[in-house]
């Protein structure tokens, strides 16, 4: 009878499946990445301590940009504060969860912010998130 060699336990990580794993990760990150350049206006967000993550799903978040000179931009369109509610109202009617993420510059004067907020109230878009950075 032939003497069988003991099968040696293989050393080393199996590399055959590695490329599959890598590809899977690759596809995940490709799908998760949005290469869209940041829309809206350039703002320097205010700083705060008690900030929390926005818990609304992404498709229900509407960004409202207000820059330091008081210009307002929604969905890449500049507009006057008087027509904000007429822009937001149809969106709000289609989406109960609609949350406004207010991305205003820290130097913006409250007059503009207050006008925007009153417009949001007119459009019944009451959930607002003051975007801020961590202090």
């Amino acid at each position, binding site marked *: 009878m032939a003497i069988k060699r003991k099968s040696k336990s293989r050393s080393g990580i199996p590399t055959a499946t590695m490329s599959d794993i890598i590809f899977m990760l690759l596809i995940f990150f490709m799908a998760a990445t949005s290469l869209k350049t940041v829309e809206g206006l350039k703002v320097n967000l205010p700083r705060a301590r008690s*900030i*929390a993550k926005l818990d609304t799903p992404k498709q229900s978040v509407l960004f409202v940009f207000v820059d330091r000179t008081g210009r307002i931009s929604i969905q890449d369109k500049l507009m006057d504060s008087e027509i904000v509610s007429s822009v937001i109202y149809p969106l709000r009617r289609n989406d109960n969860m609609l949350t406004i993420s207010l991305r205003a510059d820290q130097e913006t004067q409250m007059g503009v912010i207050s006008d925007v907020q009153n417009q949001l109230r007119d459009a019944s878009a*009451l959930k607002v998130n003051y975007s801020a950075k961590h202090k």
Partner: protein
Amino acid sequence: MIRKKSRPPSEIPSSSMSDIAFLLLVFFLLVSNVDTDKGIGVVLPPPGDSEIKLNPKNITMVLVNASGDVLFNDQLVAINEIAQRARELETGNPNMVFSVQTDRKTKYQDYIDVVDQLTMANVKKLALIGTQ
């Protein structure tokens, strides 16, 4: 001597594939920013001038002027004292409504500071009245 013609390989070379995949992976890892939008969540009052009659005892006025000074119940306070004071008032009276009013020229950062302090104090009833 007869030599075999060297045939070009008929398959895609797979040995370098994982290198390429790695490179792409690293690229997308660096480029992707899982941007989480962070901020202070508030709920605005419903539209209309529906004035709810409140007991004046249950209202705390917080006024912020154009230069960022804060008047808290007619007392001038430093911004970082607001949380402490609000917490005291809230424990004394759970129905306390904090009404934040600003000047039209107040900086947004000052307003956020005040709202931040009130949020830190776990204020449940926050009325954002706006500008005077």
